[in-house]
């Protein structure tokens, strides 16, 4: 028993030093040298300053921008939690109803052919992380009408930009394609600065 206790104490000290300090610090050192951009959060710059991370969604409200998915956390990137709306929640029904109505009201003005049946699910449902950086391609194509009109660009040009900033399935198979909202909006700003 005493033997086990002594060995355990030694083991905990040694393992804490090796696995709790040496291992993560070594990984940090290598990562900082080999993948500095990624290790620090894949930051995106515009106009000489960091405006966010391409992996972390952020809020966009103006009509000149593509809008991200709804967020339960106000797009917080330092206090994260799930919305936890249950599948049979009346509150969830109400919030989706409101989101559909708002989406249709905003986008129909620029795309009169838009119907309720074409509202993509991602546009009116809160993501898991609260900072989903992507929207679906269908969602982006609908918003393209508005952004093109507000920015005075051709629809074709905006759709081209969407394609440029779509992350396709990894290796062509894994996951789902998504349009990176921040990168797309940065590209728009570079093309036609918002006044």
């Amino acid at each position, binding site marked *: 028993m005493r033997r086990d206790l002594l060995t355990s104490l030694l083991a905990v000290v040694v393992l804490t030093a090796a*696995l709790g300090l040496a291992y993560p610090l070594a990984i940090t050192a290598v990562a900082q040298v080999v993948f500095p951009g990624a290790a620090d959060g894949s930051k995106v710059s515009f106009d000489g300053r960091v405006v966010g991370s391409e992996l972390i969604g952020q809020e966009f409200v103006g009509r000149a921008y593509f809008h991200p998915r709804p967020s339960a956390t106000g797009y917080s990137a330092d206090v994260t939690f799930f919305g936890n709306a249950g599948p049979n929640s009346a509150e969830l029904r109400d919030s989706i109803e409101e989101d559909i109505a708002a989406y249709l009201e905003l986008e129909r003005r620029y795309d009169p052919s838009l119907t309720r049946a074409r509202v993509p699910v991602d546009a009116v449902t809160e993501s*898991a992380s609260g900072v989903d950086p992507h929207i679906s391609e269908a969602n982006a194509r609908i918003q393209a009408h508005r952004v093109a009109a507000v920015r005075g660009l051709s629809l074709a040009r905006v759709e081209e930009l969407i394609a440029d900033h779509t992350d396709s399935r*990894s290796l062509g198979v894994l996951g789902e394609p998504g349009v990176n909202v921040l990168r797309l909006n940065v590209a728009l700003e570079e093309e036609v600065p918002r006044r």
Partner: protein
Amino acid sequence: MTQGWLQIAVFLAVLLALVKPVGLYMARVFSDQRVFLTPVVAPVERLAYRALRVRPEQGQDWKAYARSLVVFSLVSWLALYLILRTQGAHPLNPQGFGSGPWDLSFNTASSFVTNTNWQYYGGETTLSYFSQMAGLTVQNFVSAAVGIAVVVVLIRGIAARSASELGNFWRDLVRTLLYVLVPAAALAALFLVSQGVIQNLDHSQAIQTLGGGQQVLAQGPVASQEAIKELGTNGGGFFNVNSAYPFENPSGLTNFVEMLLILVIPAALTYTYGRMVGSQRQGWAIFAAMSVLFVAGVAVVYLAEQHGSPAQHAAGLHTAAFDGSTGGNMVGKEQRFGIASTSLWTAVTTVTSCGAVNAAFESLTGIGGAVPFVNLGLGEVAFGGVGAGLYSMLLYVLLAVFIGGLMVGRTPEFLGKKIGAREIKLVSLGVLFTPLTVLLSAGIAAAAPAAKQSIYAGVNPSGLSETLYAYLSQANNNGSAWAGYTGFVQPNPPGNASAHGLTFTDLLGGVVLVGARFAPILFVLAVAGALAGKKVSPAGLGTMRTDNPTFVLLLIGVVILVGALTFFPAILLGPVSNGLSARLF
């Protein structure tokens, strides 16, 4: 949905391809044979034995082994508890987080020493980098190694011929870490960084967003923890929203790799087992039974989630997929994973003890959400936690052999060893301990006013699901959650960042975590000891085979029977009620 099924098929194919090479490698490691890493690792290994002052060749019987394991876990628990309680005094704490309260730290220490990683604490909102690294990451490694050591002992017990010594705990611990977990985790961590998982020690960074708003980007040593969190089937996220957060899991590819990391050791251990007992078919039979249970779960979640939820339909949302949109229940899911990858992940993390989540479980549809309940209810045996999955499944194998023996009226025999009353008593205790703990603790929590304050969804099936799942998850050492159940008085402080949660849920959970981890481990080690001492008699004509399809079916039947009889009513009242009704609450 073709594309989704393709993703699932690709995953299964890659997993299957890894089973043999990884299983073989581990069999050599646990039999003290030479592997390709030996030239590099052997000197470190010798150094480790010298530092711990142990003689690795000294054999231990099951009691001595159990004593080392329990004392080591106890000391680990104390170390982690102390780290959490004195967090304010440590370095690597750029945000200046204070020390943890006693009750929450009790739960967290219990959670990580037991390979569970249940999270009442807030990740990025309350823990320093030092605590995440020197506290949680260490236990992610060590608790995984302990689980693997236990299954290796059971395998040795099954394979032994009239022996009493089952190996040396310290040697198994060191070799598992040095030859398996550390090299694999280091490689995986660097790969994850290359894909966008962050790894730094910076203060969180406030930025002005493109749209003119404010956003604070949390930073930290995430990748080093993420890798072992998956590989060791631990599951405790650096961030509160775990692997849904892009800094933990940025793409379809990382999602895929993380799922592989979770399943590779539990799946490959079946091959290790076959190798070490001298009959590869025995290993494949167990692999087959596990695969059936796993694939069935994946299919149900995927179909249910693609269908969408009653709340979505009541809101007039069309949930069919069309060009450019996944359709389905995207509430609490990420666009880059969509429905298929999220469904696969949900099954992967609940058939194992890896409670990592890449979506909000509480927002799953009723039927989709029933799958995690069933997977945990069956005791996470397909493929299960590292080590824990296979040793739990081997208990079921012995139970199936016993039941099969009764059916044909012969003394039950397993690999030439007669299974006697003592073994079956120990097996039954090992199989039933966790389910009984779940029912008892969930019952207490559903009735106790102090615990009811933790429920987010209210008095309805979702509220019951939260409570039941909290104790299912803690007792099965899973760690995923119907995350409305936070251990705090509702409405919950964002990020669980206020000083005190509910002492009652912290303590009840902590006791459940520790009890349901170590009691079954002791039963398993005792079974190993009992089996090791037995003589092996040659198989005769009447010997029931344990490596053919009939036995695989019998095994699946026994697993389902035990799980279903225990949990059927409770699961009906929770997720299944949601799934069968379009009623909104």
